[in-house]
């Protein structure tokens, strides 16, 4: 598939494709869903629906720091671009203002983001967008899109991507309990900790198999999908009870629990 920025060469996102994406996302919101897998789906569909080359999602922790949660593809290079946005970048701006940052040409953004913009350019990106995850008056995170071409998101596209960001918020909050601020806090903290567990498991698998952390993530995700396990559950088992998935950690003695 050709990779170009949102809106370019097209007038609007195809309605059929859009409907499919929303149905697919809604289907994942069953009682026992994995937050990280859900956010991964949102990011990969957000990227494909507007032909952005990469998308990621960040959530604010209790200190108001933006933490990486999920991306359309997991690579060290991309993770650095997300992590960097604790200090500066479109997600931080979006998080502060509560409004979307769209159609930013990275070549023209060096003054605005002196560290982030050059890094993003050297990673091969030309344009960036960020959409707020809004919960009532609060902004709880941001959805980040990168393109390899400069391009203009039409207002129509902006509304659609914002709708995807809103769906992400609803999934995070599990709609039925959205009224309760303390449960919002509990859910967010749980999700943030799940992401930490995934990083720890990436390290353990990388070492067990002598592979990169990116390859370790692929291995773990594919294993979870093949065996119909939640990614977060597999990650937790890898670091706390490796005997649960012996084939995933094969070839090395399993650490004691």
């Amino acid at each position: 598939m050709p990779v170009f920025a949102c809106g370019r060469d097209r007038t609007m996102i195809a309605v059929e494709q859009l409907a499919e994406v929303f149905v697919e996302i809604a289907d994942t919101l069953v009682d026992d869903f994995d937050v990280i897998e859900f956010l991964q789906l949102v990011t990969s569909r957000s990227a494909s629906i507007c032909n952005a080359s990469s998308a990621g999602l960040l959530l604010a922790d209790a200190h108001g720091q933006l933490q990486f949660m999920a991306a359309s593809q997991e690579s060290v290079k991309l993770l650095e671009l997300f992590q960097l946005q604790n200090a500066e970048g479109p997600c931080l701006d979006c998080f502060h203002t509560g409004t979307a940052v769209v159609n930013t040409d990275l070549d023209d953004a060096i003054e605005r983001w002196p560290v982030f913009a050059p890094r993003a350019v050297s990673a091969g990106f030309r344009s960036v967008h960020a959409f707020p995850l809004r919960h009532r008056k609060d902004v709880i995170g941001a959805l980040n899109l990168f393109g390899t071409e400069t391009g203009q998101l039409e207002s129509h596209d902006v509304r659609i991507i914002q709708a995807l960001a809103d769906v992400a918020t609803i999934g995070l909050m599990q709609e039925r309990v959205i009224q309760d601020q303390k449960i919002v806090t509990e859910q967010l903290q749980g999700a943030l900790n799940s992401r930490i567990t995934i990083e720890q498991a990436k390290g353990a698998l990388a070492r067990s198999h002598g592979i990169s952390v990116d390859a370790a993530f692929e291995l773990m995700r594919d294993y979870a999908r093949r065996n119909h396990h939640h990614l977060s559950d597999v990650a937790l088992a890898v670091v706390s009870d490796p005997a649960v998935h012996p084939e995933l950690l094969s070839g090395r003695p399993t650490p004691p629990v």
Partner: protein
Amino acid sequence: MGDRRGGGANGRLALLGRLIDDEPAVDGSLGVTAGRLERLCTVLARVLPASGAGVSVFTEGRIEGGTAATWGPDSRAIEELQHSLGEGPCIDAFTSRRPVLEPDLLGRGIQRWPAYGPAAHAYGVGAVFALPLQVGGARLGALGIYRAEPGPLAALTFSQAITFAEIAVGLLIDGQDADGGTVSGVDDLVAYRAEVYQAQGMVMVDLGVTLSEAMARLRGFAYSDGRPLSDVAHDVLAGILQLNRDTL
């Protein structure tokens, strides 16, 4: 919604760490870690404020635990209630791996914990908040915060409570080693660097130890080498450094 930058959280971590270091010990008979945790509870109760606080430790995979340290009137008895009754906010926070916030102990709290709720209320507790003491897959215990007055924690107060929990995690991890640093020497806990977490998983496999022990080894190595944890983690990832049983 508070300071957005990392500097705010790290600044608070350092400030609260210094307050804990400067706090005089109440019970001189406590061990190093228990003494630090008790001072942490004391400072927490003063700063948030709260009427009492306690740290419970649990063994991985089981809910039977024990009280490591407390501060406040009857707080040891309140904390122990959970262990004797087998239910309560700290146990729930530990098992669910999430904070458990119950601003109305006499209302919903009693439905949630039919035995613990009335018993804790009898000691004058109106609201309880429990934070898991964990880093990803490594679980150590839970921090209980007690208030006489019912009502939610404000966002800033919650954020401060999280900082206290992060400091407590560091103390418990360092307590596994014979001698960790001072409280204010706790470094990088709020850095949330993916590399630090990945390195923890790597060291776990390299040494064939539990995840929390791997964290202790990494931190111990960083202390003794006088380097930030993120630097050491970077070297582990790059293959420059491989901890082995003889490294420490």
